[in-house]
């Protein structure tokens, strides 16, 4: 089996070209995956939450749970807090 003449020149150059193209493909792939798996779902979740948000209802629920210092459950202003 006689081998054809192998490449003798520019071995490092060809290796670097191959390495850089692999690195470029992997980087772009990683960025696309990140967008698809993390960024876009997160944006959709925020959108869903904020469009369906009723802030006043949430305020009343929190007030009744007794979370606030300035207003008591039931709606009365709390003057003793400060």
């Amino acid at each position: 089996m006689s081998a054809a003449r192998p490449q003798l020149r520019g071995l490092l150059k060809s290796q670097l070209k191959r390495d850089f193209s692999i690195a470029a493909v992997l980087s772009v792939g990683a960025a696309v995956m990140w967008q698809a798996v993390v960024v876009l779902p997160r944006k959709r979740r925020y959108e869903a939450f904020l469009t369906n948000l009723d802030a006043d209802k949430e305020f009343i629920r929190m007030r009744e749970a007794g979370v606030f210092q300035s207003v008591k459950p039931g709606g009365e202003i709390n003057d003793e807090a400060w």
Partner: protein
Amino acid sequence: MLRIFTSRVASVVETAARANLSATSIVSRRCMSKHVVESEEEFDARYESFFNRPDIDGWEVRKAMNDIHADDLVPEPKIVIAALKACRRINDYALAVRYLEAIKDKTGPKQGEIWPYMLKELQPTLSELGISTPEEMGYDKPEFASESVYDMH
């Protein structure tokens, strides 16, 4: 103005004279300012004709070997043949084997592909000159180990 010109000329003469005396002023591929691009055949021909000079001495053989070893290429078989014949002319057997080892190392990850091809091309010259390959000498494996220079205090 004339004084500045002559002083600059004098410094050029000084450096050129020093370069000539130091026996290292030979192989420079590029002029200082112009970017000389030569073709592969010219490059090969230059090194081959350099090694083929009948009056070459050990200093220049080593210089050319170190220089071509620094480039991103494995030397063409014809250049290696010329280098081995130059080693024969300067009567340095060890340098010939060293250079064969250097080329084998230069092939890097493609050693299995390139080295057998090289050996096939070089075999006539090796038999003609009586040079053993590193494998025949047993130097493809380490023969002994020495203390690292960094551990010597």
